[in-house]
């Protein structure tokens, strides 16, 4: 039993974090709210060049042929930086499904984010080639998630493959939720250390301390479930779906709780779009109800244990 990441895995996480800290700043994310593509120009190519986009794809196809444990920390970083790219859809869900690197993939049960910039699209209906579909746009509360309904003829996809892909996608979203929760906590802790009211830092009030401590606890106990689910995916554990659902339900809860207290501890400034917090808040709201919400995933666990 050894429940930790290798130095290589940590190094890849750090490299991803360094890249995103420079190339996916809040300013970049804001730009994606308004620019034509709804993405960060050039970022996808850089992530691809690092190999993270095709991390799970076979080496023969230009991928790295690594496993989900290698990927999960990378996806957590994409959450931390609210990356407005189909990285979970491509790197976690799709690449192994299409069996090769170099394909940009969008996927969702119904409303598909970034479908307009994907080569291949997966929905509940099946697989679509971008060329052959009509996309009906829908605005999301998260301006950096352009949603589309996909109209066209789908080709069926092998069921087992899709279930495994779905579990990878769910685990990827759970990892992003952990990254988002961590970012919102950091942002808030930094703010309440500086912000003064009644002559003292707001962060010195016990109520603020306890709000943030509770959110931090939620994250502390969500993360290991996400890493464990990642290991189950990599090891093709028979209970992978259950482990993934535990991870998503706790990661969603941690992210939503953190979003709530982060806003509360900021006060009015967190309630303006000029401040960065809302970029992460809205992403966590959207992800919590994508790929099955916590109630849906507790239902999957329920059927396994009761």
């Amino acid at each position, binding site marked *: 039993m050894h429940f930790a990441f290798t130095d290589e895995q940590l190094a890849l996480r750090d490299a991803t974090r360094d890249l995103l800290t420079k190339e996916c700043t809040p300013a970049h994310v804001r730009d994606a709210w308004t620019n034509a593509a709804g993405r960060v120009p050039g970022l996808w190519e850089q992530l691809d060049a690092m190999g993270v986009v095709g991390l799970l794809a076979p080496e023969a196809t230009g991928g790295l042929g690594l496993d989900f444990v290698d990927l999960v920390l990378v996806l957590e970083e994409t959450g931390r930086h609210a990356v407005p790219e189909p990285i979970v859809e491509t790197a976690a869900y799709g690449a192994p499904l299409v069996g090769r690197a170099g394909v940009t993939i969008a996927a969702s049960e119904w409303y598909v984010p970034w479908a307009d910039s994907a080569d291949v699209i997966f929905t509940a209906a099946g697989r679509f080639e971008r060329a052959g579909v009509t996309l009906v746009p829908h605005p999301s509360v998260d301006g950096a998630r352009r949603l589309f309904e996909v109209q066209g003829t789908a080709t069926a996809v092998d069921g087992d493959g899709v279930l495994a892909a779905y579990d990878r996608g769910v685990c990827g979203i759970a990892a992003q939720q952990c990254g988002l929760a961590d970012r919102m906590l950091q942002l808030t802790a930094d703010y309440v250390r500086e912000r003064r009211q*009644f002559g003292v830092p707001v962060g010195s009030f016990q109520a603020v301390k306890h709000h943030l401590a509770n959110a931090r606890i939620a994250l502390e106990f969500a993360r290991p479930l996400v890493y464990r689910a990642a290991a189950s995916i990599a090891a093709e554990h028979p209970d992978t779906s259950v482990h993934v659902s535990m991870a998503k339900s706790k990661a969603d809860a941690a992210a939503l709780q953190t979003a709530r207290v982060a806003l509360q501890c900021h006060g009015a400034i967190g309630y*303006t779009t000029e401040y960065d917090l809302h970029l992460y808040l809205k992403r966590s709201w959207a992800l919590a*109800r994508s790929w099955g919400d916590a109630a849906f995933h507790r239902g999957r666990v329920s059927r396994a244990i009761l």
Partner: protein
Amino acid sequence: MDLSESAAEQQFRAECRSWLEAHVPRPALPSGDTRAGFAAHLEWERTLFDARYAVVSWPREYGGREASLWEWLIFEEEYYAAGAPQRVTQNGIFLLAPTIFEFGTQEQKDYVLPKMAAGEHTWCQGWSEPNAGSDLAGIQSRATRDEAGGGWRLSGQKTWTTRGAFCTHLFGLFRSDPEAERHRGLTYFLVALDQPGITVRPVERLDGDEGFAEVFFDDVFVPDADVLGEPNEGWAVAMATTGSERGLTLRSPGRFMATARRLIELARTRTDELDETRRDRLVSAWIDAEAYRWQTFWTVTRAAQGMKSGAESSMVKVFWSELDIELHELALDLLGRHAELLDGDDAAWMKGYEFALAGPIYAGTNEIQRNVIAERVLGLPRK
């Protein structure tokens, strides 16, 4: 104890209902926190005023009908049940007006109230400053005496001013005696915003509307006639207002009963998402809305008997703000993958959720309210 409505009250309810059915704008108006929506709302306010429904509890000479607290609650229930628009005039009517009635001169009443009721003058609140949020007494904006002009000169910055970009007037506190201790030395001013020296910068809110504004004052003259209450007594005057903001007047039960009813309608259309757990949450939220309604009736009866309510208003504020969030959160859970959409009818729930999230923050954060409850209701030591 008699929990039935009198014949007169029933008749008043019937009148309100039929008038509202006939006049509530369909389709719903755009958000009143945008420039276009604000204008549309002012038309509606005018319609209300002409029918004497703008300020039912006010004296007739100011446009009211001298309605009792009960009738006011009935009007509110019917107003929100009818899905009528938010009141863009509410900060004037519910926050400033009670203070004018209590502290205003006859001239101030005669000048301010009718125009406020008619929506001719729209009032925004000038409390918060960059360094005075929860800590209201931290106000730094200055009012310096101008003997020659017979008034004061205001300088400084107000922030988080709701609808400040669209309103014609602002009421707020300024520090008129820099020597005095925090809560002292503040004066309550009524200020027209269309004057030299005032700059208003709209600020976008979580929901994307420019519902906030920063208001900058650079040596703005205000005559003595526009001081509300005594100079340097602004704190006591303002507390009356924040009291009513937290308490009864700002959030009548009708709002939450109406939201709860809409939520039940939504649940009926979302049977796939309506598992037993959510059904139970829905029932709990409904019971809470009922509890809020009956606690209000309890308080109103005491008020009608002339008893003053004090720190109870802090309990009320915490309760409705959390109820409002739970009602909307539950709606989003029922909407599932549709929750994040900003198009379609159901998008109102996300906007409502974003609005509800402000509840525990403004009008004194819920953390401050809980301190007040512990100290004033339960008698726990401040330090």
